[in-house]
């Protein structure tokens, strides 16, 4: 009897591993009330310098919405490490908020769950029509040829930040090609001063997969075919990944410690504290750079360069989208809220503190007073960006390829070498994992 009880306890403990995570997350109150003075629950992603900073920025904006419409908004700001899991849990349990921020690269994957309200003709009209958005930004809202289940809220793009004083002291110009960037980075790598040419978030799977995508796009390579099947092991993909890994391996312009940088903040901090001459980051790095001691004007931004003979892709179309859960009991209020958040006035108000690019046609960037920087990022976003694969398996592409790159950077950092064959083998493993889960 005692043995049986014990075995049952063991069984339960083991199964709890997978099940505990599937149930019972605190998903907020989604009941709200059917009409009249409805209350919306809004999950916002972390855009500012902290979760509290986000609350401070958003609270007056949400209060203004309540004054205008009578609809109250319960705000919860969620960090990026937790957001995807919280959304999954909300979908699984049905205990979802009304409106939620998503990373725009997740749009097609989340659309596939059928848990989100499609912005079809009526819904799109209710939020002000599709023509108000920048087409590139709106294209990230879901699978091509379908009604999007998310609309753009904040636009982001990668740029190559460089330290003007370090470049001037070394007699260097901002790089226009990959080769120039590597040459400059090597010249600015001074081990005696513990100074490196570049900082890479080489332990962050999300950052790594973005650069796998961009470098492969510069080689004109795709990650999925027209049927949505993974094509990870193509030469363009392998060489693109290897080129990025070589910044640490062959070119030796990044500190091996970067293999432990599991988020973009650490590499930005190295740049802001002048330990490195360059960093590739999205435009929302501005506030962190300044907060860490570098003055605006001490750095410049150019597009992340492609090889001389490569395709001029400098970024993926990055950003945050807004989605409405299909099971909301406050559909009209939720659509009003989406319209308000994507309205020109609100966009201008939030553009500066969140350092975001405008997602509305003809809107001007508010995130910087530096006209050259604003023009550079706008140009990258509008003409040198390519959306990440708009397929249901996109999130699996991010996790498997990104983690494969983490592993390869770790191998390089700890003294190993990674060849093209090794890259191909790692991408094959990632491809198998995606295929098994599709």
């Amino acid at each position, binding site marked *: 009897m005692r043995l049986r009880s014990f075995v049952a306890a*063991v*069984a339960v403990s*083991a199964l*709890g591993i997978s*099940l505990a995570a599937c149930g019972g997350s605190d998903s907020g109150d989604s009941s709200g009330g059917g009409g009249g003075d409805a209350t919306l629950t809004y999950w916002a992603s972390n855009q500012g310098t902290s979760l509290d900073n986000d609350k401070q920025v958003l609270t007056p904006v949400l209060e203004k919405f309540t004054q205008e419409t009578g609809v109250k908004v319960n705000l919860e700001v969620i960090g990026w490490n937790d957001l995807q899991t919280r959304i999954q849990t909300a979908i699984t349990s049905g205990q979802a908020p009304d409106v939620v921020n998503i990373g725009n690269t997740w749009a097609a*994957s989340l659309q596939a769950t059928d*848990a989100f309200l499609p912005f079809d003709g009526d819904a799109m009209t209710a939020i002000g029509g599709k023509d108000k958005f920048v087409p590139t930004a709106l294209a990230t809202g879901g699978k091509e040829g379908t009604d999007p289940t998310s609309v753009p809220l904040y636009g982001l793009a990668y740029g190559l930040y460089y330290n003007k004083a370090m470049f001037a002291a070394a007699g260097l110009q901002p790089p226009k090609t990959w080769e120039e960037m590597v040459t400059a980075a090597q010249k600015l790598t001074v081990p005696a001063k513990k100074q490196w040419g570049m900082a890479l978030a080489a332990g962050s799977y999300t950052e790594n997969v973005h650069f796998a995508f961009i470098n492969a796009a510069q080689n004109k390579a795709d990650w999925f075919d027209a049927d949505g099947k993974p094509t990870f092991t193509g030469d363009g993909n392998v060489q693109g990944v290897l080129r990025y890994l070589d910044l640490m391996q062959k070119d030796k312009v990044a500190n*091996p410690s970067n293999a432990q940088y599991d988020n973009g903040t650490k590499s930005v901090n190295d740049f802001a504290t002048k330990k490195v001459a360059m960093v590739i980051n999205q435009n929302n790095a501005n506030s962190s750079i300044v907060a860490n001691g570098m003055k605006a004007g001490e750095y410049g931004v150019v597009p992340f360069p492609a090889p001389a003979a490569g395709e001029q892709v400098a970024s993926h179309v990055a950003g945050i989208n807004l989605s409405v859960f299909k099971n909301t009991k406050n559909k009209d209020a939720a659509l009003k809220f989406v319209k308000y958040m994507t309205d020109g006035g609100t966009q201008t108000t939030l553009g500066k503190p969140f350092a975001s690019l405008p997602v509305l046609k003809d809107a001007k960037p508010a995130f910087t007073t530096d006209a050259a920087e604003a023009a550079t990022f706008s140009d990258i976003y509008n003409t040198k960006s390519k959306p990440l694969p708009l397929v249901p398996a996109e999130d699996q592409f991010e996790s498997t390829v990104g983690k494969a790159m983490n592993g390869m950077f770790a191998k390089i*950092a700890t003294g190993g070498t990674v060849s093209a064959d090794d890259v191909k083998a790692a991408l094959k493993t990632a491809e198998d994992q995606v295929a098994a889960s599709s």
Partner: protein
Amino acid sequence: MSVATQEATPAAARPAKKKSKPGLERRPGLNRWLPYLLLAPAVLAELLIHIIPMIVGIWMSFVKLTKFFIANWSAAPAAGLGNYKIALDFDNAVGEGLLKSFGVTVVFSLVTVALSWVLGMAAAVALQPPFKGRAMLRTLFLVPYALPAYAGILTWNFMLQRDTGAVNHVLEQLHLSDGTTFWLIGGNALVSLIAVATWKLWTFAFLTLMAGLQSIPGDLYEAASVDGAGNLRQWRNITLPSLRPVNLVLVLVLFLWTFSDFNTPYVLFGTAQPPAGDLITFHIYNASFLTWNFGTGAAMSVLLLIFLMIVTGIYLLVTGRRSRRA
């Protein structure tokens, strides 16, 4: 005489019993159901928290529960043994990954349990005789057990950083390394994982063994001492056999805890867990949540459950048989 006494005793006792519990005697129905009523909340909680989720988990392992169906579980198509085939196909990336993480977990569990037991036993024996400062040391040893796991492991994460961590700094000061060792990526990740898990766990072994030592009669040691047995011999011939029942449970519990440890790798490595520290629980979490394949994740969980049940069964059988022989 004795018969009369025996007959008289219950008759004499009855009124006294009636006096002390009058309500129960008057309501035999309640008397019968009261134990079940008192047990009901626990049974209900057990059902809700453990049994039902376990059944749901087993069901999940037989359906194709991917992102296309998580909003509507009941519509997920049957997968038969498909999820198990994927998990156990060691020529495929998914199965190969599971096998590797299983191997890592076996090594991790065996070494962590062994180290925790040895440290716990050493400390418990050392702190057995009374001396000045013993109470303070006992309290100090229990700090890792009392500290919230998250805070403790996160502190280790800071200390094990390559450039800014205290561990490399101390090793460099002691001229034991050049201070550039990676502890959280590469092959050392498993060493770090074992060290942190042992730090977290050994105090439980210490606490349990200390309690066990209190129950051994002191005159056994006195007698052995008179007979000329040294400390080591006393430990081997008195302490170890006396602690056998405690050790049987302790080792099993430590093994089950380490084998299903999720917090340590999750907090220590974050989302960037290295292959050398890829414990099976974290592997299952990734399979479920990063690739949105909850069916395969559930199948892996069930396989882990079966493995732990077999190990537990064999362990209890073998140790039980030895106990009976002894």
